[in-house]
């Protein structure tokens, strides 16, 4: 991976038949990311099905079961690159019942592309997709108004949809500069990689140009440093006899040698003695680094503990309130016990109260006694031990958790801490 190429992670959302797979197939084709054997396979399949055009959606529809049904049923990851940028696309389906898939795909993405069929305009599904982008605090949303070829590339249609969507934005936490509207035809390649001559009234960037000018640093706002201890490295060799390296991934902010740190849960303090990245000693690490640190004093620190800069302590509590999205068939119930995984730390959690089920179309909430698959709700928890967290709003990695079913061990919920 080239050092000078940046990485942009994108989630896509659209309803059935909005042409989402076609859009991704088109991006792959236009960036020459589809190899000849894949293009041949698409030509073959398209012909077998009697289409008179290249069905780019076949480039991404993976599993046999869903190809038979003609729909995508899970999150698929797709990769392409340009000279300047590596892209990862989490392709998530848009059916009503698949909220969990979009939440999953969006959890690892910085950008969301929401597709709208120009003939249908803003529909209930659009509300839901935008609601999830809002819930997950996606940094940037591209609203791709697709199938412009089927509405004669009419600016009026585009403006009407934009106005309808702006009304939605007003109900959300997004600011206008976080949203970009682009009229496209994925099938014909208009405004995807090539500026459309059919829509001279649109003066903005093509979709690809727009995605390329985004900067990862702008998409991941920095906060304070959080270093959850993942694995303790103890070589016990002669050369490294006393070495105790606390390894993990650094989130939120920089950490450097000499920093005064507080260890959680013990609240002991120490100083960063050294930072290691493989066989190099470094002075300072930026967020996202997988490193190992040693401390100036001997301390008791193990997996699941956390190291933060003194003076920047997170909240530590055995009670918390979170917005939950249920991602498993088993409903979340009041009184239910779960394994709560917060980063790499696990504690037991009990559902104290389910306060409400939130309507995913921005129309408020209602009382609920349980949360079923794809439900989103506000839930109060009590934990067996305190965890050290921030609000999801201020620190995504330290403000989110998953719930694991005690009996089946499946991942049943994802939580965003208030």
């Amino acid at each position, binding site marked *: 991976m080239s050092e000078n190429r940046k990485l942009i992670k994108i989630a896509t959302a659209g309803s059935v038949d909005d042409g989402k797979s076609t859009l991704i197939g088109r991006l792959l084709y236009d960036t020459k990311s589809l190899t000849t054997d894949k293009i041949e396979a698409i030509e073959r399949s398209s012909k077998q099905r009697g289409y008179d055009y290249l069905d780019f959606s076949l480039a991404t529809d*993976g599993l*046999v079961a869903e190809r038979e049904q003609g729909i995508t049923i899970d999150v698929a990851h797709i990769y392409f*690159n340009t000279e300047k940028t590596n892209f990862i696309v989490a392709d998530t389906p848009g059916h009503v019942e698949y909220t969990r898939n979009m939440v999953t795909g969006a959890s690892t993405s910085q950008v969301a592309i929401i597709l709208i069929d120009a003939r249908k305009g803003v529909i209930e599904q659009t509300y839901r997709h935008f609601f999830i982008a809002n819930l997950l605090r996606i940094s940037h949303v591209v609203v791709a108004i697709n199938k412009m070829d089927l509405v004669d590339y009419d600016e009026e249609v585009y403006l009407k949809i934009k106005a309808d969507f702006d009304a939605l934005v007003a109900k959300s936490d997004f600011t206008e500069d976080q949203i970009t509207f682009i009229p496209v035809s994925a099938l014909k390649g208009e405004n995807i990689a090539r500026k459309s001559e059919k829509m001279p009234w649109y003066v903005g960037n093509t979709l690809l140009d727009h995605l390329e000018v985004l900067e990862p640093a702008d998409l991941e706002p920095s906060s304070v440093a959080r270093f959850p201890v993942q694995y303790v490295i103890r*070589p*016990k060799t002669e050369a490294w006899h006393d070495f105790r390296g606390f390894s993990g991934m650094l989130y939120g902010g920089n950490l450097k040698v000499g920093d005064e740190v507080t260890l959680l849960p013990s609240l002991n303090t120490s100083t960063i003695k050294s930072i290691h990245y493989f066989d190099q000693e470094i002075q300072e690490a930026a967020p996202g680094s*997988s490193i190992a640190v040693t401390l100036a004093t001997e301390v008791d620190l193990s997996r699941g503990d956390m190291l933060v800069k003194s003076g920047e302590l997170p909240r530590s509590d055995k009670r918390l309130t979170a917005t939950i999205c249920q991602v498993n068939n088993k409903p979340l119930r009041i009184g239910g016990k779960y394994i709560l995984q917060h980063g790499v730390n696990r504690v037991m959690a009990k559902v104290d109260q389910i306060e409400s089920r939130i309507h995913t179309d921005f129309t408020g909430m209602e009382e609920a006694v349980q949360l079923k698959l794809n439900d989103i709700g506000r839930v109060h928890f009590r934990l067996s031990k305190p965890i050290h967290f921030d609000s999801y709003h201020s620190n995504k990695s330290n403000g*989110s958790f998953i719930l694991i079913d005690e009996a089946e*061990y499946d991942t049943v919920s994802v939580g965003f801490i208030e």
Partner: protein
Amino acid sequence: MNNLLIPNPKEAESIHIIREVAAQFERPVLLFSGGKDSITLVRLAQKAFYPAKIPFPLLHVDTGHNFPETIEFRDKLVEELGLELIVRNVQDSIDQGKVREERGRYSSRNSLQTTTLLDAIEEFKFDACIGGARRDEEKARAKERVFSVRDDFGQWDEKNQRPELFDMLNGKIHVGQNVRCFPISNWTELDVWEYIKTENIEIPSIYFAHEREVFFRDGMIWTANEHVYREEHEEVMVKMVRFRTVGDMTCTAAVLSEAVSLDDVVGEIRESTISERGARIDDKRSEAAMETRKKVGYF
């Protein structure tokens, strides 16, 4: 001393995943084929635990039809890094009557590996197998999880996969289950090659252009060798070739190439219009070849 570390996001994610495997499982193993992806995995594992040694063994399921260059390379790497290597042979599974050797024009031991692998998992009670699979390789892989839970029969149920949110990995399993772990899920073929170049990682010589006795079949270049079934009319000739993926001789096709250095290879990959698995004979058997093999426990 370097001043500020700006992480390579894909590398940092892979190291994070490898450390999770070591922390969450009792008996992990790294599935090592001698190919570039598993060699990359070894480098990432070194980085994850340095200055300690890699805390799990490597397992090579040897079809007996490997390129000798790969086996030589494997043994050298293991010795240099002081790693523990376990080898299990497909030939033994054949001798025990557990699998039957394929015959004829497209015969290969590739799919027979599954039985040998599952037996080794049971023998050593491995609960996590780290593999070098990447999501960009093949359609069915695009939906694979980083931690993919398999049942006692090694089976993959695509409809019953745990959602993976943020970078939180759930490796909780029941007795009898095991997890396939894929730290370089998010890498592309080009990422791997560029990484090998940047890190100056040694790879087997067959990845570089060399003269080899080959024959042409179905538009692909096959190695001419006692292990590879060849019909009389299929004429053997000497060509300058290299391999893009290294598996069993019977299922790995060569490409014509003049690339003798890593720079050349990276250049060819950038320009390439044929996908890596396009040179995998095993994937051409049917449109859903990979998915079908995964369901029965292929890694």
